[in-house]
């Protein structure tokens, strides 16, 4: 199947999955935003964890199932689509939860209906399309676009599921096709511009899918601290049960089943694995190197995102983040082209190229996380916490320390932890830019997964996943016990991307901010 056809089929799948996901995200967003703070936190956790589960682990877990479906390509495609749906729904839901409310709410809509269409038709802003654009669709369209983009760029599961039955490829995947063209046919090696000839179509598709989100971000204005959220009615009991069911299903299918299968598969090989210290040694060295690259990329991406957001250079940030938003393969090929064109092949497979590529890939995520996690607390809260921490009273100092941790340390640790997690498990940029000795350990695991399942591989994969988790734990512990060195400033003004609803919704409700300690 040619690349344009694979690209078209992948796009079709992406749009279909995103459209199916759309009502689910609306339901989940409504349920989570109206739940009690504790339930909301639990639901958000259950929502996010499947998205954070690495695709190659999911693909590996279901590789035997997909083998059984090799002769039923339709079922194979449906299984793949279902897994993708479960993985991208959290992203759409988060967009709906954190995006500022659209200008036209239900009240405006109700007034418009009361006034009658004919009376308002002479005002351009009240026409049907304008109302749609400024109503619910304003946030849903970016959510759909982002979900479609993620589906469009997915390749880890597709690569492990890919079968040709009677000449028909299932699942179609442009990224697999383009990757093979690069790896097998040396695309771009003679003439770097050949990369553009093949890569322009996926790039255009990606830009098309990301444009609603970019448009939303481009037109975003920093909102004041005022509570502009609107009360939503609490979903009915049946709907609440549906939400719980969905969260349970996605958590079970995308996270629990893969992890349990890794544990069960690897159980019998654990003793021999620990005895084989050479393997463990090389795995440790590879993990440490991968972590080092992930940490450097995290630092670079975070600092750039924070710096540009604080300087309110939102548009510069969007331009810088655009290559990362286009997916790791597009970004990797862009950098490959740039290195071949301007620096020669000498720089292509170096640690510098790898760190640069990973940083650019992480940058949009870093920017979104800085905004979503409100890494910079409001000035008043931060200052009061510092005053409390500087108090002569021991109890008050302890309370101040807890406050500082809650306000800044925890959020910074979460930001760094999540970025490290993604950076550590990234595969494509590694393949295209890493020198042999710096090839990530996740990439090595992924290569071996193409040989089928075995106990040793499952055990190693589990260990590899534990490395960044261990690192996040270390970050948390260090951050918790060293609040005195917390220098993170507070924002004198709201950050760009800030929704201005920070303290209003239950998700963002901060008990510390609302109930200052006595």
């Amino acid at each position, binding site marked *: 199947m040619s690349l344009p056809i694979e690209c078209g089929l992948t796009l079709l799948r992406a749009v279909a999955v995103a459209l199916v996901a759309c009502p689910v995200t609306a339901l989940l967003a409504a349920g989570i935003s109206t739940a009690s703070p504790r339930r909301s936190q639990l639901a958000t956790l259950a929502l996010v964890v499947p998205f954070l589960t690495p695709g190659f682990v999911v693909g590996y877990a279901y590789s035997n199932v997909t083998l059984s479906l090799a002769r039923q390509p339709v079922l194979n495609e449906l299984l793949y689509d279902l897994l993708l749906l479960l993985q991208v729904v959290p992203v759409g839901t988060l967009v709906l939860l954190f995006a500022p409310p659209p200008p036209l709410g239900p009240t405006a809509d109700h007034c418009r209906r009361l006034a009658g269409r004919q009376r308002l038709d002479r005002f351009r802003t009240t026409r049907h399309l304008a109302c749609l654009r400024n109503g619910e669709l304003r946030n849903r369209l970016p959510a759909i676009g982002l979900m479609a983009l993620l589906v469009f760029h997915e390749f880890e599961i597709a690569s492990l599921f890919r079968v040709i039955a009677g000449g028909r490829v299932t699942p179609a995947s442009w990224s697999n096709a383009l990757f093979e063209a690069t790896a097998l046919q040396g695309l771009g090696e003679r003439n770097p511009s050949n990369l553009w000839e093949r890569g322009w179509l996926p790039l255009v598709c990606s830009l098309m899918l990301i444009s609603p989100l970019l448009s939303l971000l481009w037109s975003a204005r920093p909102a004041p601290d005022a509570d502009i959220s609107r009360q939503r009615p609490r979903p009915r009991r049946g709907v609440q049960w549906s939400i719980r069911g969905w969260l349970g299903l996605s958590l079970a299918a995308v996270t629990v089943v893969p992890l349990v299968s890794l544990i069960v598969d690897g159980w019998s090989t654990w003793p021999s694995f620990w005895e084989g210290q050479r393997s463990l040694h090389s795995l440790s060295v590879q993990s440490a190197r991968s972590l*080092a690259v992930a940490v450097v990329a995290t630092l670079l991406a975070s600092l750039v995102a924070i710096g540009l957001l604080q300087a309110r250079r939102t548009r510069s940030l969007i331009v810088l983040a655009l290559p990362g938003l286009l997916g790791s393969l597009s970004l990797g090929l862009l950098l490959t082209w740039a290195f071949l064109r301007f620096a020669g092949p000498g720089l292509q497979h170096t640690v510098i190229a790898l760190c640069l590529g990973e940083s650019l890939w992480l940058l949009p995520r870093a920017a979104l996380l800085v905004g979503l996690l409100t890494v910079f607390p409001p000035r008043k809260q931060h200052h009061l916490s510092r005053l409390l921490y500087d108090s002569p009273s021991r109890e008050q100092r302890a309370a101040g320390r807890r406050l500082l941790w809650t306000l800044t340390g925890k959020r910074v640790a979460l930001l760094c932890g999540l970025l490290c997690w993604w950076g550590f498990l990234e595969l494509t940029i590694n393949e295209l830019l890493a020198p042999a000795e710096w090839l990530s350990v996740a990439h*090595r695991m992924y290569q071996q997964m193409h040989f089928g399942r075995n106990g040793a591989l499952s055990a190693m994969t589990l260990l590899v996943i534990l490395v960044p988790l261990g690192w996040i734990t270390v970050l948390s512990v260090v951050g918790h016990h060293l609040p005195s060195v917390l220098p993170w400033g507070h924002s004198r003004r709201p950050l760009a991307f800030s929704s201005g609803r920070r303290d209003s919704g239950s998700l963002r409700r901060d008990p510390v901010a609302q109930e200052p300690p006595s």
Partner: protein
Amino acid sequence: MPRRSSPPLRCPNPVRSNLALELAWAILLIGPGCSPSPTPSTPPSPVVTGKTLVVYCAHDALYADPILERFTQETGIAVQTRHDTEATKSLGLVNRLIREKAARTCDVFWNNQVLGTTDLLAHDLLVPYRGSGWKRIPDRFKDPRGRWCGFAARLRVWIVNTDRLAATATAIEQGFAAADLSRMAIARPLFGTTLTHYCLLWHVDDGRTLKAMHADTRRRGLIEVAGNATVKNLVARGTCDLGWTDSDDFFVGIDDGRPVAMQPIRLPGGSTICLPNSVAIIKGTRQMTAAQRLVDFLLSSEIELALARSPSRQIPLGPTDQGQLPEDVRHLVGWASEGIELSGLTESRAACLAWLRAEYDR
């Protein structure tokens, strides 16, 4: 855009002046991970002589890594390996080596077959070396100038699920001729040993029979998957009845206790397909002595024996004590001796590959 007025409380440290502290905090928080490749206390690291030897290895990591680790243990020369995926194996690395011609990073190329390595000859990428290992390998498996040398071979085989099909030549022939081929699997022929298999079929009559067979099998629903290991999995699990794979993958199925059997694949002339590994030193290496030591190490009878005893049951090509060979491998030696000559396939390979690329890009 209007700015907000200053808040009533005066803050001791404005945001911008905190940048240095922020950096310090970030480094404190994240810094420990930046230390390059921490060395665990056990086991002791090998004594590294100079820089690390970079090996591009198309052989399965599962089998190659222990061999390379043994080399490091014995010589103190550290090795960094770059493997290729099952899907793109050997061809991906060959292309990478050609691509890196101007800025070489690889010192030694361990290919899991001969074709591909011989492609590098045309690009003048290989260094001649006729060491002790090269001398012990028969002439038909090595370059006379010593630019590459074969060792430890595999066979292309039919793998059959014995619960569904008898592992006889007749039953296999009938299975292959069935109207519905959706119970037969092969690896995609664009790469790996299936590509070599296709090249040999192409070589028979410039691809005429191969093209017809390819179109016909696809029309009858043939299953094509990423690699030979997946073919083995499909047959071992009973999803397919038969398939083409390599002998090392077949033995994994046997070791897993699956109901599988094999028959060697025979070409129109009756020859079998015996595929040796090959090793070559890449031109421009700055670790010539270490690279030569690795080549001699891989071509030694100890390593051929070790590979024969490994789960992949590779067939030794040089003189080896037959008594020490496992029963499975002794069985294969006879078939391997009937293997077709692999030299002189360069043109057929190029033509076949060009046709396949066009075929799969439609």
